[in-house]
């Protein structure tokens, strides 16, 4: 089926789905799509959900989506799973927890692999979010496993980040290592009926005390996601944070910062592609590698000369 922007603006889910594919794969015309939709972005409330594997993120997201639906909002979900570094393939299994949302026409769920291309990863997520935003979804969740820096970067595309932890499994330690505690605007202790919930709560509080004092103190909510408990508290926390962002002017500041990062990345990306294309197509690059390897010259001199040639 041919993609048309007209269908996209007419609210066709098929067209939204196709647009994300085109942008994700950088197929012909993807930049035109992004140029056209950009002016219509910035309306949605974008929420990142992250946490260690097995923390119950998908189940929590499932419940949050249902809650926002009851409030009459349309919801998008960007569910991200890691791409295998060996094959480039991925198994995207987050939908399974959200199967009963599949038939709700007010919900759009899209699974994405991290695909591991340097830097481009978080931008592809950002683009998918922008497409959902422009298409008209009110609330958009970006769900990702908080295991490394790349996932942290993805979540930075959100206005508000929810960090999901579970007691008693040492996941808290992992989370600290992965750096996801620093990015939490709201915390939830999921499966809070387990032993160790209080201890985990104390640990998060202590960690927050260590940081610089700020106007926003991240609330710590407790949930049992698979029984639907505590969901309203989390939603309140998220909305409070949203309100705080708006009133403090931080929302604008964060978004401006995001534009800055995004543009810097795009420039960086564009230039490096341009340069690499130049020197690989002419075969120069292979020669340079050989010369450096043989210690006939050094990488610093070579890079000076390559960049100098192109930008003279």
């Amino acid at each position, binding site marked *: 089926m041919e993609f048309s922007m007209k269908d996209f603006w007419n609210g066709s889910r098929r067209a939204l*789905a196709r647009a994300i*594919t085109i942008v994700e*794969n950088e197929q012909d015309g993807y930049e035109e799509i992004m140029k056209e939709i950009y002016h219509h972005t910035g309306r949605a409330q974008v929420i990142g959900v992250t946490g260690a594997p097995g923390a119950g993120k998908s189940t929590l997201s499932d419940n949050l989506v249902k809650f926002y639906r009851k409030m009459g909002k349309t919801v998008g979900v960007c569910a991200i799973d890691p791409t295998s570094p060996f094959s480039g393939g991925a198994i995207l299994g987050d*939908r399974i927890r959200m199967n009963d949302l599949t038939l709700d026409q007010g919900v759009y769920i899209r*699974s994405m692999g991290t695909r591991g291309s340097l830097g481009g990863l978080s931008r592809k997520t950002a683009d998918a979010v922008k497409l959902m935003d422009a298409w008209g979804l009110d609330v958009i969740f970006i769900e990702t496993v908080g295991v490394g820096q790349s996932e942290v970067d993805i979540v930075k595309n959100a206005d508000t980040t929810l960090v999901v932890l579970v007691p008693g499994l040492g996941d808290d330690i992992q989370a600290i290592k992965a750096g996801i505690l620093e990015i939490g605007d709201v915390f939830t202790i999921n499966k809070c009926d387990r032993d160790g919930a209080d201890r985990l709560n104390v640990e998060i509080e202590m960690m927050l005390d260590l940081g610089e004092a700020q106007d926003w103190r991240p609330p710590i909510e407790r949930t049992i996601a698979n029984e639907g408990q505590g969901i309203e508290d989390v939603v309140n926390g998220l909305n409070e944070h949203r309100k705080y962002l708006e009133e403090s002017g931080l929302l604008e500041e964060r978004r401006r910062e995001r534009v800055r990062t995004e543009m810097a990345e795009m420039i960086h990306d564009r230039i490096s592609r341009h340069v690499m294309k130049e020197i690989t197509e002419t075969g120069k690059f292979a020669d340079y590698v050989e010369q450096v390897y043989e210690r006939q010259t050094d990488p610093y001199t070579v890079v000076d000369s390559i960049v100098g040639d192109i930008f003279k």
Partner: protein
Amino acid sequence: MADKKIRVLVAKPGLDGHDRGAKVVARALRDAGMEVIYTGLRQTVDQIVEAADSEDVDVVALSLLSGAHNTLFPEVVEGLKAKGMGDVLVIGGGVIPAADIPGLEEAGVKAIFTPGTPTKDIIDFIKANV
């Protein structure tokens, strides 16, 4: 332009819980570089079609061992067509008697893989037909 990744929805319509085959195939497709959206057990035809739509997949791979394939597989094909996704490659697998295969193919299921099929055959078929 980057390579377009092949996206495959692996789904189990019907009620049977035998997902060994579906999971082995899902892994094999991943190891062949594809993105596999796995939706698990007991998917209704509507759920499969909606998920295929949202995820904009190139392939829908159905697995069924209960004998309900003659009812459910053609319904998925029809559902996709109704969504304007008639170009999606629909394939099936499971305990399916040879006598049923021509009928399923006629209904638009492009290939049926029965027990004992190497996963490589499935991978090759997808790569050749997407």
